[in-house]
């Protein structure tokens, strides 16, 4: 039955999503914090990274990491390559998300924190992040949903996720509409609940 193969692929889809999300989250947060330190050189580096990785397609990134690195001797398995490629691209997106959240908090709060004897790091930890957290959840949720769909490009580097199996099934059985209908349903089964959670998060905002 097709279902078994597709479900097997779904497990990998989820693995790649979780891995890439974690990488993107850590990168985004780290770079946004670095950006807030106001060191000109560091901010320029962050800006360059964001521009590059937001504007190069995911597929291209994956090819560079999987095929390109292999040419210089670094051979990665498809799943780790997918996680790294998607994570790097996502990191660029989430850097912007975190930066916007930090900016949304009035500069004055940061100054009040400094005035009371906090270092900039402490201000970020105790004042900025606890508030940025709330602001950042909906966009994070939206990114997660988009990421899950984006993992489909990993099929091009032979990662055994949903689309990879879907295409194999079609090649073997020629049941094109049926296979892709089931594939779509499978994606929907994952993305619709996620989108609902994001919607709930957006409703719950306590302060603007």
């Amino acid at each position: 039955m097709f279902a078994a193969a597709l479900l097997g692929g779904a497990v990998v889809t989820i693995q790649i999503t979780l891995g890439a999300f974690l990488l993107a989250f850590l990168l985004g947060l780290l770079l946004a914090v670095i950006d807030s330190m106001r060191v000109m050189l560091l901010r320029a580096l962050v800006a360059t990274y964001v521009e590059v990785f937001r504007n190069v397609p995911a597929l291209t990134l994956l090819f560079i990491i999987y095929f390109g690195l292999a040419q210089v001797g670094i051979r990665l398995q498809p799943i780790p390559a997918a996680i790294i490629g998607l994570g790097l691209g996502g990191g660029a997106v989430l850097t912007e998300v975190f930066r916007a959240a930090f900016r949304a908090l009035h500069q004055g709060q940061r100054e009040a924190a400094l005035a009371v004897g906090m270092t900039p790091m402490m201000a970020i930890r105790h004042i900025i992040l606890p508030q940025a957290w709330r602001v950042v959840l909906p966009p994070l949720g939206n990114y997660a949903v988009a990421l899950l769909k984006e993992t489909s490009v990993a099929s091009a580097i032979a990662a055994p996720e949903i689309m990879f199996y879907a295409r194999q099934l079609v090649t073997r059985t020629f049941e094109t509409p049926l296979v892709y209908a089931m594939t779509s349903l499978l994606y929907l089964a994952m993305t619709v609940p996620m989108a609902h959670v994001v919607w709930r998060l957006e409703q719950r905002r306590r302060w603007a």
Partner: protein
Amino acid sequence: MHDTDTASSPTPVIEIEALHKRFGQLDVLKGINLRLARGEKVVIIGPSGSGKSTLLRCTNYLEAPTSGHVRLDGTLFGERLVNGRHMRMSERELAAQRRHVGMIFQSFYLWPHLTARQNVAIAPEKVFGMKRKDALELADALLAKVHLSEKRDVYPERLSGGQQQRVAIARALAQEPRLILFDEPTSALDPELVGEVLKVIEELAAEGRSMMLVTHEIRFAAHVADRIIFMDWGVIVEEGAPDEILRRPQTERARNFLSQLEMK
């Protein structure tokens, strides 16, 4: 120790020497010299753009001076002498110094995700290392002092401007500051709320605290100040006892400014 002043005068709590501050092409402070004795209350008045706020912000190094020096109790603030050159301190050292200077902002800047009590207690706990229980007790005592005990578990968005500013004052008091800076503390308040904040500031003044206050409330200034400084265009134009400055201003600019205020 820098007690090289004359035998009769102890170290001033704040000494500002030849302070210049430039933002881009604009010279906002053009050479300020100011001394504040312990327990003295100085009120700074002057037109908008005269650099009053910038002066306060340089005093606790929220802005770094372009040139000149600030000394807190005789010790260089924000910079240290290394081989004869002045170098900016690290963030950690700077934070440790700022802890001794309380600042009240025109827009309060309470932290919205914390209750009044938490706003006051967080620095004692996280910065000064007090135990949470002790920090909360301190917060309660200070909120009582500013007459806001019943609001201690309320979030800032539900407090009036006057209440928020009083919480901000309690927050600054939690630092046990050697000096308190007030940057137009009542300018953002509805008129009927101004009084409650001025009352608290007056009580603090009566306790003998060292204060630098920027305000447009001239009558209050006259009442609370030991000395009034009139600033305009980045320089101190006149300074002296409240009576002298307000009743018998010596300079044209001071006279113009004060007469404009009379008309309001």
